[in-house]
């Protein structure tokens, strides 16, 4: 093992930091404003006096009262108590596409020129942003082969909602509401497909994978498709990282029965420049530009799930679109969309994500996008070969085949042989300043874990991660208690079991709920 990949002597900081509301001292202030000068007071008058009474608070907001330096220290301490994206090797967050977002893109997104804009400014004064949005759409059209994009949705599930809303409108428009009432998806496609389809009044059909190939069972698919099929919502490659080369056979079948096809490209990282939605004859596609195109996923977001459509579905897109008026050489927000499903998000959508995506695409160019995909696939298959050789780890489906950008593995064997499975490895790997993610619904693969390296990680970092995994597997065999009592180098050693998350009575998602339900950390309030 080289110095570059050997395990670090890592220990997370522990601060026992109170919640910010507990640090509040009445009267303490971050900024003390000077008294207003008499000339200004005379000239400006009572600036707030003109506000209507019903817009004024009757009492001040219950915000914590603190000096600037204390606020800064508070948040710095908290930041040291997690495995932040800029600190750890997070290739274990498979399906999240945790790639590096160049800091200059962050600077663009946070620049005063952008953050100082008001969303209801006159269009003539925000031509720069509108131009970026318009150009970004042109890039996305080239990448996917679609004819028009809406940049409005605020994430992947929101994009699916927009797409299924358009499918609903398209079906209703044709007077087929009673006959086209089914949506087909696959068990490894986006988990929101079922929920959204149901919310929009469709019945849902799930296709399970062929046990050997891992691709959606073609025979089952043929049984499922009928004149009742309104649409197919599918991902390719699915979360297993297996590419379905028969995808066009599926879309052709749905089209032959008069349905529409939507391609979930939330994670397009392994196929950029290699294949396009249009090649498989899809009617819709969407990208999570906060994953594939620079913005960090999850809390590093916020997200943006852009939706592309073919020509015949442009009339249903959400408004506004961003268009260019050649005659007057100006960009504008276009509300002239005849059968639009309406507005699905306030104002422009999530501008910072669009700025980062625009900058990322511009910095790489077409060749760079292809290279990013190739490196992501290469990294993934290097890891696949290493993990295949690890004791207790299995690679379900498609034996011996390469995968695209990620792989869903299983620790079932390790669990059976040592009693240590995914949960234990997940807790232990924190001690190596690495991360392994737990959300792999549906649990068709037992003791699942998903690794997705993207193109950002160097071989040394990947080797560091794999060395940690190998060490943990050795421990599981020789000293399983080390895993069962992990993490050892983190501020919190006890992790609540999943079942607790299932009980709404124990949730405290706001400060007020926390105060009402809990007297101290993790101690339920005594019953009266």
């Amino acid at each position, binding site marked *: 093992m080289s110095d570059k990949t050997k395990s670090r002597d890592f220990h997370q900081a522990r601060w026992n930091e109170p919640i910010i509301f507990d640090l509040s001292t009445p009267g303490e202030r971050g900024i003390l404003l000077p008294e207003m000068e008499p000339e200004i007071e005379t000239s400006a008058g009572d600036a707030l006096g003109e506000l209507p009474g019903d817009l004024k608070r009757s009492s001040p907001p219950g915000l914590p009262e603190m000096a600037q330096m204390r606020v800064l220290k508070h948040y710095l301490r908290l930041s040291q108590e997690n495995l932040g994206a800029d600190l750890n090797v997070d290739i274990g967050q498979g399906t999240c596409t945790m790639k590096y977002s160049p800091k200059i893109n962050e600077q663009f997104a946070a620049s005063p020129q952008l953050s100082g804009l008001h969303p209801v400014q006159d269009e003539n004064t925000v031509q720069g942003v509108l131009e970026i949005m318009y150009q970004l759409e042109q890039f996305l059209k080239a990448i996917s082969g679609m004819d028009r994009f809406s940049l409005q949705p605020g994430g992947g599930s929101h994009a699916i909602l927009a797409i299924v809303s358009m499918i609903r409108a398209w079906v209703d428009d044709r007077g087929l509401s009673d006959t086209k009432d089914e949506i087909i998806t696959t*068990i490894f496609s986006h988990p929101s497909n*079922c929920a959204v389809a*149901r919310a929009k009044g*469709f*019945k*849902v*059909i*799930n*296709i*399970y*994978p*062929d*046990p050997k190939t891992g691709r959606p*069972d073609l*025979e*089952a*698919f043929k*049984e*499922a498709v009928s004149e009742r099929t309104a649409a197919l919502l599918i991902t390719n490659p699915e979360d297993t990282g297996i590419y379905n080369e028969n995808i066009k056979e599926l879309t052709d079948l749905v089209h032959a029965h008069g349905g529409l096809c939507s391609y979930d490209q939330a994670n397009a990282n392994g196929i950029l420049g290699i294949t396009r939605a249009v090649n498989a004859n899809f009617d819709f596609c969407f990208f999570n530009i906060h994953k594939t195109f620079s913005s960090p996923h999850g809390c590093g977001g916020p997200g943006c799930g852009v939706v592309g459509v073919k020509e015949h579905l442009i009339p249903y897109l959400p408004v506004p679109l961003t268009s260019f008026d050649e005659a007057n050489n100006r960009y504008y927000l276009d509300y002239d969309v005849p059968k639009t499903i309406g507005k699905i998000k306030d104002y422009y959508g999530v501008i910072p994500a669009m700025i980062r995506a625009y900058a990322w695409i511009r910095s790489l160019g077409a060749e760079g996008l292809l290279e990013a995909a190739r490196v992501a696939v290469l990294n993934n298959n290097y890891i696949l070969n290493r993990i295949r050789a690890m004791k207790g780890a299995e690679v*379900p*489906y498609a034996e011996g085949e390469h995968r695209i950008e990620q792989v869903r593995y299983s620790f*079932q064997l390790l*669990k*059976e042989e040592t*009693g240590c*499975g995914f*949960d234990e490895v997940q807790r232990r790997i924190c001690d190596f300043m690495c991360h392994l993610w737990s959300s792999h*619904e*549906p*649990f*068709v*693969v*037992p*003791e699942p874990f998903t690794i997705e390296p993207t193109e950002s990680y160097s071989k040394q970092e990947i080797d560091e991660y794999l060395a940690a995994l190998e060490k943990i597997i050795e421990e599981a065999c020789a000293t399983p208690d080390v895993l069962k009592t992990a993490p050892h180098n983190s501020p919190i050693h006890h992790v609540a*079991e*999943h*079942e*607790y*998350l*299932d*009980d709404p009575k124990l949730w405290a998602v706001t400060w007020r709920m926390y105060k009402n339900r809990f007297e101290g950390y993790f101690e339920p309030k005594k019953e009266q």
Partner: protein
Amino acid sequence: MFRLGLIINPVAGMGGPLGLKGTDGEEILELALKKGALPQAPSRAAHVLKALSQEKDKICLLTCPGPMGADTAIQCSMPFETIPLKINQKTSPEDTRRAAKMLQQRSVDLLLFVGGDGTARDIGSAVGERQLCLGVPAGVKMHSSVFALSPHHAAEIALGLIKGRRSQPRLAEIMDIDEEAFRADQLRARLFGYLPVPGSQRGLQLLKAGSSASEKAKQQASAAFFVEEMDPNRLYLIGPGTTTRAILQALGQEGTLLGVDALRDGQIIGKDLNEKDCLALLDQAGFEQATIVVTPIGGQGFILGRGNQQLSAEVVRRVSKKQILVVATPDKLQLLRGSPFRLDTGDPELDRQLCGIYRVLTGYRESAYYRAEL
């Protein structure tokens, strides 16, 4: 204190290594002993008790005398109380049943039993569906889904409960086969009942994912979908199981959990039917006007021939494959770990014809298409 009951069937599993395909029945046990069989269950029980000893201050262990518990507890230095059960040198199924009843009367929080399918049947017949149980696998046959994957997993599940982990019990199938037929290389399995086992637990008879909605609510959801799609003029033969029972409950009908019931226009028209009854009803209804509704056996996936032999090859042959409707919650499908449904009607040619894709009701207005193979 967590009140833990423990019953070891000391002869369970002894026939396995000798290829005897079971140890049920005195004759076979004699043969096993003659062939030099060694007890399997005590070492498996010891594995569990050693793991539990880390929390022994929180456990009040109640167990049986001698080889049915006390010997192993002593070996593992685990404090325990013995129940006043008199056993002979050669233990019997009756001992297991009496022990289970006595432990239930002593209000144990969890009844751990170490054995195989035969032991599970004895426990089930003694405590019914009112005692939280967990099987530690030690038998030759373990077709029931009441068993943990291994002694290791059993200890882990028990430790979770001892440490206060919340868990909604779920009813798991008690299955057993006809050992005489099995020894002649014929597999005939029957559903004997259900036992409540800790639900939402990893490690119990194949992985079961944590889930915010209870299994029962999901069963009700697919039952509601069935009712919505139901054709009032059609005859439905509803197979055994808790998933299919939810359909009858949704209609306000009292069905039989382990039997086949006939349904038409929302009303039960025949209860606990045998093969002959089913054939008569099918003749009466006209074959095209009937649907057979079944649910897979948890963790194993048999949709025909295990636990629902009333729906015999002769019965199934009267309808087309498309007239067989499967009902299963998503969790139940996931328990199969990607394995297909299985068929065992007793007629290999019919099983071969029935292979292929089935429609499965999985929730309200949700279905799946799932493959059955031999």
